[in-house]
């Protein structure tokens, strides 16, 4: 078994609050289009934060991807994952096997994570009927919607995948961790191709716990597009988001053998945990572990920090943003003015929890492909602790034709971290 396959990205799929599909999403990133809207259903139940990022037009869109029979047993988390995964599979130039085909795509697997999963199905259907003593009225579709692996399992059936199919979960690091895990699986020669990323549904039940923690922004309900403010001095919590981002990772040898279009190569990846020590906790990152994670990915990539053209940060719009930037700087050992361009996709789409890393990895690859770094909106009033980095934080999209390397990192509750280094191919 080969143990050092090079791993490339040959397909992308994205369903985000501000766009669906690669062309529309790349355009939305370039334009700085916000996908954050006011949602009455949050106001109706007295959320402090009544804005969020929810993909639009999905009711019509889902019928183009899924049959009525399939939709009977799918919640939004699963639907979002399916749309992004089907798109990524097709974008990689692969033809979906018919549902009645007598064959399986043994060479392709999927690691599609979720942070919260099917809690909306539990809250809306399973718990009420169970408490009413109507278990026999639940029907057959509960388990597949509430099992943690429901999103990846459904994708396996839709595409006929025969390699490893699983769902990882590491809170807000989920999507990035999935990419790292799939990268290693291909690198070890255990799969030719892996769909990798994350998905998250939208629901008051998914978001209520965060609102109760007062970590969501409750100060901008009247101006939704201004609510997600990473790196801003007036940042007051993140804005919840949803959707899915899925990448087709593939061994370079497989991609070349079938003449696939190659977007980028993954040079390195690293995941770790801060152990809830040294300043880390269930909800705060251990700075040392963050720096070790970034340094581990960079070391594996075999690059110098100066070669990194842009950082797609975790940067959610909580108190942690200045600490995150400080950790990037310490990890890379660069003076503030020499740092890569720093940006936050969450300023446009909110924090899509388990889907965030997947959507933001798709963002990074599109930026490499098209040679731009999208602007981070709503941080004109930069946080005072970030003043030294001001020249490295674009508020509007900048063209960077020679952009070669992007570092993407995610950090999650549980003190967990993930970092991926993408290089334009």
């Amino acid at each position, binding site marked *: 078994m080969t143990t050092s396959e090079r791993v490339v990205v040959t397909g992308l799929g994205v369903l985000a609050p501000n766009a669906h599909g690669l062309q529309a999403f790349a355009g939305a990133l370039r334009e700085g289009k916000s996908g954050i809207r006011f949602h009455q259903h949050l106001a109706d139940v007295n959320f402090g934060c009544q804005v969020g990022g929810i993909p639009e037009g999905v009711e019509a869109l889902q019928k183009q991807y899924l*049959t*009525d*029979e399939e939709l*009977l047993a799918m919640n939004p988390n699963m639907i979002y994952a399916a749309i992004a995964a089907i798109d990524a599979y097709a974008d990689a130039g692969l033809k979906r096997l018919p*549902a*009645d085909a007598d064959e399986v795509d043994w060479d392709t697997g999927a690691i599609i994570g979720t942070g919260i999963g099917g809690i909306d199905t539990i809250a809306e259907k399973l718990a009420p009927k169970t408490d009413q003593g109507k278990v026999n*009225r639940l*029907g*057959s*579709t509960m388990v597949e919607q509430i099992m943690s692996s429901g999103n990846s399992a459904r994708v396996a059936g839709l595409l006929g995948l025969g390699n490893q199919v699983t769902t990882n979960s590491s809170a807000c690091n989920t999507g990035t961790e999935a990419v790292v895990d799939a990268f290693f699986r291909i690198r070890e020669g255990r799969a030719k191709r892996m769909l990798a990323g994350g998905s998250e549904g939208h629901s008051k039940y998914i978001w209520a716990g965060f609102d109760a923690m007062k970590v969501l922004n409750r100060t901008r309900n009247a101006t939704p597009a201004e609510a997600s403010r990473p790196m801003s001095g007036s940042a007051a919590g993140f804005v919840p988001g949803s959707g899915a981002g899925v990448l087709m990772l593939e061994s370079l040898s497989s991609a070349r053998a079938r003449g696939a279009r190659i977007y980028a190569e993954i040079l390195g990846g690293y995941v770790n945990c801060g152990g809830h020590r040294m300043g880390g906790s269930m909800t705060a990152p251990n700075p040392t572990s963050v720096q070790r994670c970034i340094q581990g990915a960079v070391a594996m990539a075999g690059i110098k920090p100066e070669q990194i053209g842009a950082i797609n940060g975790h940067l959610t719009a909580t108190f942690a943003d200045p600490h995150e930037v400080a950790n990037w700087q310490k990890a890379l050992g660069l003076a503030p003015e020499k740092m890569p361009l720093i940006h936050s996709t969450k300023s446009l789409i909110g924090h899509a929890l388990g889907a965030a890393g997947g959507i933001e990895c798709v963002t990074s690859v599109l930026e490499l492909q098209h040679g731009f770094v999208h602007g981070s909106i709503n941080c004109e009033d930069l946080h005072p602790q970030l003043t030294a980095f001001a020249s490295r934080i674009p508020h509007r999209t900048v063209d960077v034709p020679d952009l070669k390397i992007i570092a993407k990192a995610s950090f999650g509750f549980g003190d967990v971290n993930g970092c991926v280094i993408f290089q334009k191919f």
Partner: protein
Amino acid sequence: MEQNEVMGKVVDILRPFVKNPSALTGISMDTSILKDLKVNSARLVDIVLEIEDAFGIAVTDEAADQVKTVGDAVSLILKTKA
């Protein structure tokens, strides 16, 4: 209620669960729900629940287990309502 009327309602209930819609064209009392219509066997539970609601009947687990064809479902409904 006439057999044809019951069968029409049963077909309407089955329709969203059918993976082989072309089999609906020549559907008859002998059509197998699983083999011909390619309904996922797990979904039989949901179909029975919908039949119970649509016809105002209660179907025992034992009776539900005997339903293999469209005709089996129609007969069960007519018998239970009689």
